[in-house]
């Protein structure tokens, strides 16, 4: 890929990120203007839905043709979620899931 295009991708991502963070201050900064209900509705429901889609996105490469191609991912996701339900410590959950996954993948136990 041309370097210029990679730079363009990064700049677009940076610009849109800034917009998502600054927009509420521009839209709702003048005293206490009411936030439209549709906006507060999306604010409540969109983030969990997007994060759910991202979990699927991050394991998109799995294939069900052989157990070793999906059981590691799915197992490690479930483990990460369980550890997080239990401890609610972000670092512990991520480290546990990632290390177990790396051991599984590198060991090829299935």
């Amino acid at each position, binding site marked *: 890929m041309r370097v210029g*295009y990679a730079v363009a991708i990064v700049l677009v991502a940076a610009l849109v990120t800034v917009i998502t963070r600054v927009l509420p201050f521009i839209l709702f900064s003048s005293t206490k203007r009411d936030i439209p209900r549709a906006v507060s509705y999306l604010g409540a*429901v969109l983030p969990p*839905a*997007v*994060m759910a889609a991202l979990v699927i996105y991050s394991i998109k490469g799995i294939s069900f043709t052989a157990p070793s191609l999906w059981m590691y991912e799915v197992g490690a*996701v479930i483990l*990460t979620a369980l550890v997080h339900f239990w401890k609610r410590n972000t670092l512990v959950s991520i480290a546990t899931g990632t290390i177990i*996954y790396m051991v599984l993948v*590198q060991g090829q136990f299935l």
Partner: protein
Amino acid sequence: MMGYLVLGIAFGLLLHQAGYHWLWALGISCIVFAGSLQFVLVGLLAQEASLVAVAVTTLLVNSRHLFYGLSFIEQFRNMGKRGFYMMFSLTDETYALLCATSGVGSQEEQNARSFWIAVFDQCYWVTGSVAGAVLGSLISFNITGIEFAMTALFTVIFVEQWLTVKHHLPAIIGIVCAVVSLIFIGPDNFLLPALIATVTLLLLGRPLIEEPVCA
């Protein structure tokens, strides 16, 4: 904050694995500064996504940031120039820390503390990313599977949100749209259609969902 250092290292390692010099990690972590989006960005770079796809994906992945700001409109306005940096740097981690420490001390103490939380968060993140990218070129041990750090991050944020919201239908809609889109479109370009379908369904289902959520 240690979490940021570790996740930053994972991001740097991934970016290195994708064939980018550590200067890229430095640049991206300085100007984009968005944990989960940066992991997605590695994938977007790898597949040479169109700029429109990058923009829409960024908007939707970061959509939660639109609502973080709402909690801090007054405080950031009182912070003068530092307020602009606060807006730019309001990530998941910073938001969580600001929420946890708000209301402690005088207004001025709170502003100063908030500012330094944001600065340190970004320092940890940038340091971690660069360290990860440099480490990637130095170490010889097998890092196969390190990319799971991204999956684990998303899973953790997902669980956090699952535990805090009252209504779980939106999360289920997100999963279903993603799976259906993955099956029909395949792994390369399914995220954007999945996110658009999710937003559409959420808007259509508003009469069903809204009451329990906002009650």
